[in-house]
């Protein structure tokens, strides 16, 4: 087990290293950042001075190494727009994003579990079909459109909930629901097919023959085993959640990483963009690592695969 975790940890670090190179190259390949920092009237001399001051005259490898060694300690330079350390901005916004993601996950689980279980238990009935429609609908509706409609009606016309920003629990509901509903489909489908498979298995039949109550069969026997494929899906699920969050945060003016990135991009604030991309990639990598370890605990065969 320890060996498995160690190997996966090294793999995650390699993936992060690749991303840091890509981010570094993207930032350099897109034109001289000095054009963004210095005023239009700057002379050639000003450019040279600034270049030397920022260390941009050094070889690329050296620049990359110093970029990485500072990034590891959470130092991502200074935001060109906010004129504040980027690390500080990230530390300010990251908790908001994590809280929204956690809430959205809660929403999607709260929808996927009842829908998936009901669909499996009542396979082929109207309930099954309705559950599938609810979940596939969420996946097919563009989040920003749902957001606009919710803001217009629930927040605007009926004034039930706040339209945006962060202000207590009620402000989580609209963005959390918008984000959560989008990712229900994958979860629900996995639960449904997992449950169907288990409900059809020999040991569930045996349990039924032995006289175990149907409720116990569903909750104790079927659900626990149907959860295994759901765990493996968590990595992909989380990556989609993070990507979609950028759009949702922007529409709901949510002060999180996604909105920070959007603001950073519209003002060409490269230190901020680098930091956001690396932070999100690191979070996704950590989540994937945890998922794989969890999976190895649940299903020991994985540890010996390969």
């Amino acid at each position: 087990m320890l060996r498995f975790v160690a190997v996966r940890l090294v793999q995650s670090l390699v993936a992060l290293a690749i991303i840091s190179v890509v981010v570094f190259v993207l930032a350099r390949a897109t034109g001289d950042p000095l054009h963004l920092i210095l005023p239009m009237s700057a002379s050639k001399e000003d450019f040279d001075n600034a270049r030397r001051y920022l260390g941009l005259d050094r070889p690329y490898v050296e620049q990359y190494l110093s970029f990485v060694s500072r990034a590891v300690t959470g130092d991502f330079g200074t935001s060109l727009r906010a004129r504040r350390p980027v690390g500080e901005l990230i530390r300010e916004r990251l908790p908001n994003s994590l809280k929204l993601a956690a809430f959205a996950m809660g929403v999607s689980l709260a929808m996927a579990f009842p829908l998936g279980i009901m669909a499996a238990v009542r396979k082929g009935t109207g309930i099954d079909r309705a559950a599938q429609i609810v979940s596939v609908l969420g996946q097919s509706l563009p989040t920003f459109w749902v957001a606009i409609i919710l803001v217009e009606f629930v927040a605007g016309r009926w004034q039930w909930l706040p339209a945006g920003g962060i202000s207590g629990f009620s402000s989580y509901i609209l963005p959390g629901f918008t984000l959560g509903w989008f990712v229900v489909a994958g979860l629900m489908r996995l639960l449904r097919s997992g449950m169907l498979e288990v409900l059809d298995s020999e040991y569930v039949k045996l349990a039924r023959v032995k006289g175990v109550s149907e409720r116990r069969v569903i909750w104790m026997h079927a659900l626990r085993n149907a959860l295994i494929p759901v765990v493996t899906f968590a990595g992909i699920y989380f990556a989609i959640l993070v990507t979609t969050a950028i759009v949702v945060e922007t529409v709901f003016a949510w002060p999180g990483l996604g909105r920070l990135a959007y603001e950073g991009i519209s003002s060409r604030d490269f230190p901020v963009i680098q930091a956001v991309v690396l932070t999100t990639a690191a979070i996704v990598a950590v989540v994937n690592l945890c998922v794989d370890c969890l999976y190895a605990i649940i299903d020991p065969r994985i540890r010996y695969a390969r």
Partner: protein
Amino acid sequence: MPAEPAALPLPEIDGAAVAAPRGWRLPLFPIGAIAIFLIVAIVAPFLGLPDPHEQSLRSRFKPPVWEEGGTWAHALGTDRLGRDLLSRIVWGSRISLAAGVLTVLLASAFGAAVGLTAGYYGGRVDAVLMRITDATMSFPVILLALILAVTAGPSFTNVVVAIAVILWARYARVIRGQVLTLMQLDFVAQARIAGAGAWRIITRHLLPNTLGTLLVLVTLQIGYVIIVEASLSFLGAGIPPPTPAWGSMIAEGRDFVTSAWWVSLFPGMAILIVVLAFNLLGDWLRDTFDPKLRQL
């Protein structure tokens, strides 16, 4: 050796669970919707619709025909600049469908090539390719597209490239997994004994066996790509105006939801119908041809 008693009942009790082919009920709604949108997108110039770019300040915010003040000249109403919404939605379908199909084709071709190579060669090749795949998968699609839009300018090509550059990783992952299983089977060993080279084994033996999976994944991903493209256009990083794209049309109508709800409602409906159709078709393909692919 005791003979099997002939009187034993055949295991028919399980028949229902084992066989019971669900029959070939074609999913009519998805196929019909996709066909209609495809045909409309292709023949858009010949439909006799008003020019989607033509502005007319005198007919701004005309409501759809069934509302008071609506006319058949603008069946779905007009937007802030008096442009015909129906025509813009029809022309927008070209953008969305082209972006969806092109992106997915690019991503699946590249991803399948990587997956086949990694699975076939294994060892170091596999390790290197899979680390790159991992890295790609943890890169948020929308962020990359936003970066590209800012640095290289928003354009159709940049949107397609930005999404494809990330999306291939899913194909690589799934196809590699399948190839690893296929490599254990006898026919690959037999092909090798018969003297087939790597190229031949990959293209003639491995690839055909992964086509089903590819088809399912491609169908399911088109819907996702259309949503991502619309999101980018909505954020102003996709197809630049005045080209009609569904995402940017919704963005333009955003400030007038109260007074002119139709401006952002109809493009949203268009996205919903197309994406729903692709998702349902993908689900159906998977359930019918490859029920094992639950995770796609």
